[in-house]
Every structure is written in structure tokens, then in C-alpha cells.
């Protein structure tokens, strides 16, 4: 830095407190969690453990199904402290984020503010620092993470109140926020990677939060492993960058990106590897399968990690490395194409899911696809914009569904029903009577995601669709060739796919609302009377999120709209992000003619029409009253069954990848090669051969003097022969 950065002496220098606060929360809560459960064993662990027999098994049994099934388990020993620390650090972090935001708004900054903490890996020419980087993009992310994170923490106080793992839950949640902040604040790819893996870890821990259920533990593992496939791509991308640019700092990468030939194979390869990472983290085809399974975790987790923040990390990373993607059109088109296909594909599955969280999960996958379409076509602002609004309404949807599930649980719990599924929509119905607040806010979120103006989703989604259309009419992407097809054609296809996905989104969301809140209640007579609205600590955050979902669009009002209706300032977010992604956007958009205003208005109309059509279609065609509770439902057939089973993708993966790898590892590598060839054949085989030869030799040692003499003479003849030859 030649001169002091404008943020140097401001609140921004406390930026390291942002991740540190949740880290402190994690440490405190973790310690409390451990302190509450741990009981050191006797000095000699192998000593007879019979004396503990009476308490042991019952203790274990009581915890076997932990989330609140049993008769009012006592609250966590340190519940009060945890309730203060866990959300408390989030409130502080959000406050700090706001303060820094305020400073930034006042500062004129052209370069990111780098806060170097210490030298992390100084190895020759690789000088990696533990450094944080603050710029407009990361500020947006920080606000989303701390803000929504804070709300979800608050919600969790209510949602998790009866869980014996209360402290552990908040510890993990805090740790997640810490990692996520590290991810978005990292000044180099490696620090980002730390956060990247950290959020994966927390995701793993939280999905498997109720680990005594094998399914939950499996889901956690799956999430982590699939993410690791992505991480592999991320790592290779880092290696290639370092090998070719000699740096991993974002600032330096941006400075040296010019060394790459635009559109060259190298930069494209780097971007594609990076993409693999993004697809893993953000659950895109082909790595999306973990996300629906991840719904095994507590619902606030789904809201925070698997909807609002972590899964958007891929989108963030593409935006963060836009300097590379913008010179790799093929990679960018891949981003967009995969995003569009995913958006549609996940939406089809969402149509036939019965588990309320699964619907939302596929919806998330689908919406993430949208974001990728946005960043893929170089509309980085649009992608980030959708990321933000999606964070609002999807968090709301998840928390709302959490509220419903909470009610269902309590109801089932009250009548000691342990068999029925509290998340299956066929067991719900007519919930609006019991949960009016939840009902209202959920509708807000539904309209937002469906793209009904003026809710947040409308603006962000429309922005993306418009940009796709615009790019098709002239940009580096349109002029590139993608697998032999012209870029423009691909962009049109993307546009159509995205539109189709929008239609399906409206349909399945309406379906979900209908089945859950409308029509007759199917919970069962006994349980019905116990259904009730959630406490204020849960509904409070819902309301806040509803407001954000409703008005989030104001963050980035499109010109087309503001020209027609003066709602407020135009394109706030775009201007805000301009220093970060502006250059990249321009590079991609180079040569594009400005879309005519009339065309834009038509496009707007088409989007609205599709959303409305979807809602109307679902509203008119679906009959909540004809549903029967899950236990009575008939298995579906035909294409419905295919959708219900998610196109059998999990099964296909299982048969084509997982099973063969395991079988090869066990059968070929271990049993055949390791045990068979190396050990038996070579190691033991040579030993056995030596012993056998020894045995043969000892048989020659027959005890007959004649034999001995014979050998002696033969030996003598040979030796003489040898010498005679030597002499001869």
C-alpha cells in the first residue's frame, strides 16, 4: 500500500472482530456443551465398568431420540448462558458490520481494504498471510450473514429450547458464522478456502446434529463428501493459479489476470475447476444431491446454512473471481447453462415432494441455479442481488416451515405419537387456522419467490432474465463458441430454461402453501387440538424477514421500473458493487447494445405473466381436500413416481460410482492386490517358497553317507571343471 487506505483508521480496522465474535461464542458454548455432558472416567479405563450399569443404559436410551420426544426433558443446564452468548455474539457482530458499513458508505474506496493479521504460510515465493479483505462485495455478504444469522439465532432460541444438545447447537451455529465470515472476508483464496471448508464442517456437524439416527449421520457425511468433490476442484484451481500467476491473493490475481490470454485454455481450465467447487458448495448439477438430504438437520440450520448463506458461497466465489471468469467465456457459459438446467431440473422434483422441507430444499437448488445463471452471464450484480433477496425469502420460508414443524411436533408429542411424520404435508393442511402469523409471512415469501411484483424476488429474478436476454444480443459470451454451438444460442436456451423454471417455481410453491395451510387439517383428531402458533421469539424474526422479503427489491430497482413508477433510487446495489465487479461485467458485456426499453417492458410482462400463471394453475388444479394423511396415501406411479424419487439420481450415483468404487477397493485393491498379490503371493509366498526349498534341501540330507559322498564328488568335479576351464 503506497498510501494509507481510506478505511485504515476507521471502524474497519476492527474487521477481525467480525469472525472473532462468533468464534468466541463457539468456544464458550462448546465448553458449556462439553461441561454439561462430560463425566471423566475412572483412572483405569479397563477396570470393571459394572458399577455404572444402572445409569448407563437408561441414560443412553433416554437420549436415543433426542429432539424433544420425551416427557419434557429438563432444559439444558446452561440454557440461559447459552441463550445469551450464542445470539449475543451475533447481535454484536451485526452491530459491528453495520458500523463498518456506515464507514464504508462515507469513504471513497477504490481498492479493497486488506487487514493482515499474521503470516500464515511463508514458504519461499508462496507468502500466504492470514489476511482479511473488505470491499463492497464482502460487505454485502457480511451484512447478509450477520443479519440473517442473527435472526436465525434468535429463532433458534425458541425452536431448540427443549433439545438436550442446546449448547452444542449454538456452538456449531456460531462456528458456522465464523467460518462463513472467514469465507467472504478472506483476502486470498486460501483463507477463503478455510472458511469454505469450515462451513462444510459445520454443515456436516449440524446436519448430523441428531447423530444417533443413522440417516442423519449419513446425510451429514454425504453433504461433506459431495462438498469435498467440489473442494477438489477449488484446490486444483488454486494450484493452477499459483503455478501460473505465483499468487493467491485476490488483489494480485486481479492485477496479474491480464497475463492470461483471454478465452485461453488455461484460464478456462482454472475456471472450470473452480466451478466444480462452486457447484459442490452451491448444490448444482451434478453435485446437488446432498442438499435435499441435508434437511435432516434442525430447521434453523436449513434456513441459515442451506438456504441463506453457505450454499450461496459458490455464487459469491464466481463473483469474487469475476476477473477470471470474465475472460473465460466458455467457463462463464458453463456456469450459466448448468445453473439454468439445475433451476429447471430441481423445480421438477420440487413439484412432487411431500416433505415440506424437501420442497424448499429443491426450491433452493433451483434458485441457486438462477443465481448461477446471473453470475454466469456476467450479470454479477444480478446474481448477488438474487442471492440477497433469496436469503431473505428462503430463510423466511424455512423458518416458517420450521414454525409449522415445531407446532406439529409439539402436537404429536402431546399425544405421544412417535410414528407420524411431522414434516409431511399430507399430515398437515389447514394450518392457517392455528398459525395465522406464520401463514401470512409464508405467503409473502411465496409471492416473493414466485416473482410477483413488488416482492423482492420479482426484481432480482427479472434482473437475471433480462440480463440473459441482453447478453444474447451481443457480448463476449454471445460471440464465443460453446461446444460447437454459438454462445448466443446457448444464452437463448438458458433464457427459456429459466423461464420454465420460474413457472414451475410458482406452481410448486403454491402447492406447498395449499397443502400446508389450506384445506382441511389432516393431523389427526388428538393432535389437532394441540396445534398452536409459535412463541414470539420465533415469530419475531419471521416478521422481520417478511418485511425484508417484501421490500428487498428496493435494493436494486431496475431502470425499466423506475422509469415507469418512481419507487426509489435506481440500481443501488449495482453502483455499490461497481468497484468490485464492474470491470468484469463490462468485459463480458463488451459490444452489447443496450436493450430497447420496450423490449425490456415486454420481458417484464412475460415474467409477471408466467408467475401469475403458475400460481393460478396450481391454485385451480390442486385439491387439498382430496389429500389423505401420509400413512393412508397410495404409492404414486409413472412419471409422478420418477419425480417423487428425484429422477432416481441418488440411485444412479450409487450404482454407477459409489458401489463400484467400494467394490473395487474391497475386492480388487484390498482383498486381491494387497492381501492376495503382495502379501500372499510375494511376501508369504516367498517365505513359503524359501521354506519349501529348505525342506527339499533337508530331504537331500538323507542321512545316507553315500548321498553325501556323491554330492561331494559332484561338487569336486564341478569345481575342478571350473578351474580347468579357467586355466584352459
Amino acid at each position, binding site marked *: 500500500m503506497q498510501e494509507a487506505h481510506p478505511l485504515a483508521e476507521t471502524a474497519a480496522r476492527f474487521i477481525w472482530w467480525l469472525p472473532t465474535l462468533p468464534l468466541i461464542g463457539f468456544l464458550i458454548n462448546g465448553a458449556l456443551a462439553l461441561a454439561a455432558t462430560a463425566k471423566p472416567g475412572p483412572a483405569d479405563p479397563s477396570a470393571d465398568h459394572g458399577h455404572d450399569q444402572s445409569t448407563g443404559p437408561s441414560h443412553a436410551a433416554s437420549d436415543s431420540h433426542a429432539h424433544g420426544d420425551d416427557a419434557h426433558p429438563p432444559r439444558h443446564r446452561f440454557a440461559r448462558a447459552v441463550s445469551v452468548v450464542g445470539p449475543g455474539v451475533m447481535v454484536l457482530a451485526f452491530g459491528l458490520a453495520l458500523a463498518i458499513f456506515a464507514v464504508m458508505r462515507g469513504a471513497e474506496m477504490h481498492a479493497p481494504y486488506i487487514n493482515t493479521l499474521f503470516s500464515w504460510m511463508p514458504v519461499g515465493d508462496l507468502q500466504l498471510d492470514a489476511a482479511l479483505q473488505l470491499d463492497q462485495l464482502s460487505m454485502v455478504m457480511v451484512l447478509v450473514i450477520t443479519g440473517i444469522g442473527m435472526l436465525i439465532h434468535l429463532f433458534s432460541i425458541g425452536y431448540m429450547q427443549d433439545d438436550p444438545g442446546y449448547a452444542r447447537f449454538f456452538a456449531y451455529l456460531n462456528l458456522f458464522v465464523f467460518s462463513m465470515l472467514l469465507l467472504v472476508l478472506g483476502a486470498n483464496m486460501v483463507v477463503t478456502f478455510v472458511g469454505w471448508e469450515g462451513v462444510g464442517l459445520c454443515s456436516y456437524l449440524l446436519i448430523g446434529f441428531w447423530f444417533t439416527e443413522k440417516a442423519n449421520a449419513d446425510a451429514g457425511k454425504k453433504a461433506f463428501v459431495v462438498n469435498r468433490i467440489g473442494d477438489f476442484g477449488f484446490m486444483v484451481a488454486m494450484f493452477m493459479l499459483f503455478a501460473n500467476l505465483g499468487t493467491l491473493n485476490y488483489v494480485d490475481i486481479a492485477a496479474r489476470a491480464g497475463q492470461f490470454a483471454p478465452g485461453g485454455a488455461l484460464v478456462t481450465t482454472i475456471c472450470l475447476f473452480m466451478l466444480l467447487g462452486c457447484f459442490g458448495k452451491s448444490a448444482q448439477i451434478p453435485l446437488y444431491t446432498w442438499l435435499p438430504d441435508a434437511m435432516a438437520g434442525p430447521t434453523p440450520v436449513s434456513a441459515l446454512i442451506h438456504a441463506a448463506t453457505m450454499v450461496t458461497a459458490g455464487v459469491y466465489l464466481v463473483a469474487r473471481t469475476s476477473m477470471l471468469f470474465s475472460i473465460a467465456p466458455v467457463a462463464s457459459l458453463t456456469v450459466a447453462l448448468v445453473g439454468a438446467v439445475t433451476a429447471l431440473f430441481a423445480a421438477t422434483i420440487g413439484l412432487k415432494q411431500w416433505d415440506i422441507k424437501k420442497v424448499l430444499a429443491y426450491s433452493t437448488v433451483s434458485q441457486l441455479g438462477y443465481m448461477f445463471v446471473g453470475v454466469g452471464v456476467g450479470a454479477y450484480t444480478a446474481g448477488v442481488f438474487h442471492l440477497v433477496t433469496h436469503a431473505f425469502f428462503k430463510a423466511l420460508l424455512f423458518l416458517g416451515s420450521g414454525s409449522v414443524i415445531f407446532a406439529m411436533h409439539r402436537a404429536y408429542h402431546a399425544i405421544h405419537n412417535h410414528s407420524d411424520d411431522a414434516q409431511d404435508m399430507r399430515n398437515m393442511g389447514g394450518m392457517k387456522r392455528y398459525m395465522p402469523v406464520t401463514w401470512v409471512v409464508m405467503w409473502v415469501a411465496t409471492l416473493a419467490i414466485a416473482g410477483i411484483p413488488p416482492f423482492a424476488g420479482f426484481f432480482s429474478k427479472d434482473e437475471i432474465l433480462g440480463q440473459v436476454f441482453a447478453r444474447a444480443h451481443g457480448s463476449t459470451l454471445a460471440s464465443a463458441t460453446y461446444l460447437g454451438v454459438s454462445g448466443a444460442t446457448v444464452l437463448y436456451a438458458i433464457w427459456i430454461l429459466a423461464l420454465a423454471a420460474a413457472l414451475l417455481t410458482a406452481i410448486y410453491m403454491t402447492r406447498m402453501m395449499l397443502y400446508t395451510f389450506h384445506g382441511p387439517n389432516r393431523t389427526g383428531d388428538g393432535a389437532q387440538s394441540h396445534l398452536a402458533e409459535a412463541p414470539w421469539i420465533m415469530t419475531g424474526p419471521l416478521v422481520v424477514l417478511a418485511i425484508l422479503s417484501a421490500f428487498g427489491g428496493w435494493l436494486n430497482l431496475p431502470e425499466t421500473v423506475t422509469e415507469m413508477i418512481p419507487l426509489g433510487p435506481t440500481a443501488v446495489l449495482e453502483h455499490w458493487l461497481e468497484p468490485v465487479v464492474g470491470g468484469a461485467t463490462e468485459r463480458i458485456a463488451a459490444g452489447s447494445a443496450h436493450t430497447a426499453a420496450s423490449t425490456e417492458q415486454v420481458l417484464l410482462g412475460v415474467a409477471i405473466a408466467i408467475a401469475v400463471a403458475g400460481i393460478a394453475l396450481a391454485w385451480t388444479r390442486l385439491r387439498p381436500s382430496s389429500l389423505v394423511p401420509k400413512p393412508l396415501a397410495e404409492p404414486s406411479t409413472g412419471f409422478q413416481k420418477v419425480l417423487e424419487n428425484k429422477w432416481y439420481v441418488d440411485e444412479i450415483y450409487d450404482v454407477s460410482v459409489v458401489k463400484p468404487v467400494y467394490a473395487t477397493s474391497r475386492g480388487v485393491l484390498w482383498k486381491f492386490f494387497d492381501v492376495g498379490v503382495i502379501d500372499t503371493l510375494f511376501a508369504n509366498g516367498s517365505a513359503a517358497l524359501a521354506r519349501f526349498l529348505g525342506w527339499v534341501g533337508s530331504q537331500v540330507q538323507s542321512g545316507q553317507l*553315500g548321498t553325501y559322498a*556323491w554330492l561331494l*564328488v*559332484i561338487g*569336486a*568335479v564341478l569345481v*575342478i*571343471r571350473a578351474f*580347468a576351464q579357467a586355466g584352459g
Partner: protein
Amino acid sequence: MNEFYPLVYTFHFYLFGLVALAAAIVFVTRKSPVAAALWLVVVMTSLAALYVMLDAEFVAVIQVLVYAGAIMVVFLFIVMLLNLGTLSELGEIRGKWGRIAAALVGLALVAELAALSRAAYSLRVTVPARSGPEAIAETGGVIGSIAAPMFRDYLLAFELTSVLLLVAIIGSVVLARKRSEHDAG
């Protein structure tokens, strides 16, 4: 070393040589140990004759006295003592294949050793032949010519043979002695 030998000398040399060879072959093929021992005596005696012809009269005498005489007598004595003329002891020669194999090995050995006689002509040692009556007379007669190396050059070896014989005496006494009551149990 192409010395000239009178025909009579050559004749006798070959005669005794052939006798020795034939007797040796007969010796190894006799079933009876007694017969074998006697044929061996024939071999030794023939060799003694050859020793004389090779100017080693003293050795020849010792050969007859000690070897053919004393040692072989001991052999015969043992054979008699152990009464080894029984049938079971006689059927001890190897079977046909064993003999054929032995013959083959023998041929191989002979083939290798045959080169020796050729080599004898190429001995490039320039030590003058110190044989013949004159040489013997020079070095002190039949006995004297042997005494010189034995008691001068090979004094130590000579003394060593006494140790060797001592060992043999102790050994054979210890082995042949009747068991004492200590090791009788």
C-alpha cells in the same frame, strides 16, 4: 624331460602299473571285505614296485612294511573281528544305476585328471632332476637323500607327525576302551 628309458624298465613299469590298476578295479568290485583287502594289498605292493622304479627305494620299503603290512593287517583283523562275511553285509554294493552313475562320475573325473599327464610334459620347472644313482650317492645314499629334507626342511612336519600319532593313540584307546561303570547306565 624326454629321458631315455631302457625297454626293460619301461616294460616293468607298465607291467606293475597295469597290475596295480587291475588289482584296484578288482578290489572295488569284491563283495567280500577280506578279498577286497587282499586285492588292495596287491595294489600296494605293485605301487611299491613302482616306487623302486621311481628311485624311491626307501618309500617302497616303508610302503610294504607299514602300509601293505601293518595297516592292511589291521584292516583284515577288524574285518575278521567283526565277522563281516555275512550275507547281509555282502549285499552292500549299490544297484545297477548307482554303479552306472558312479562310472559316469568316475569318467568325468578321469577326463579332468587325464589332462594332468599331458600337463606333466609342460612343467616348466627348472629344478634339475636329482635322480639316478649318482644323485643319490651325492646326497648320502637311499636313506640319506630322504633324511636331509625330512630332518632339515621338514623337521617340524616330522615332529608334528608324532603329535598326530599321539592323538590317534589317545583317540583309539578312548574309543576302543571298555565302558566304565560311570557311563554304563
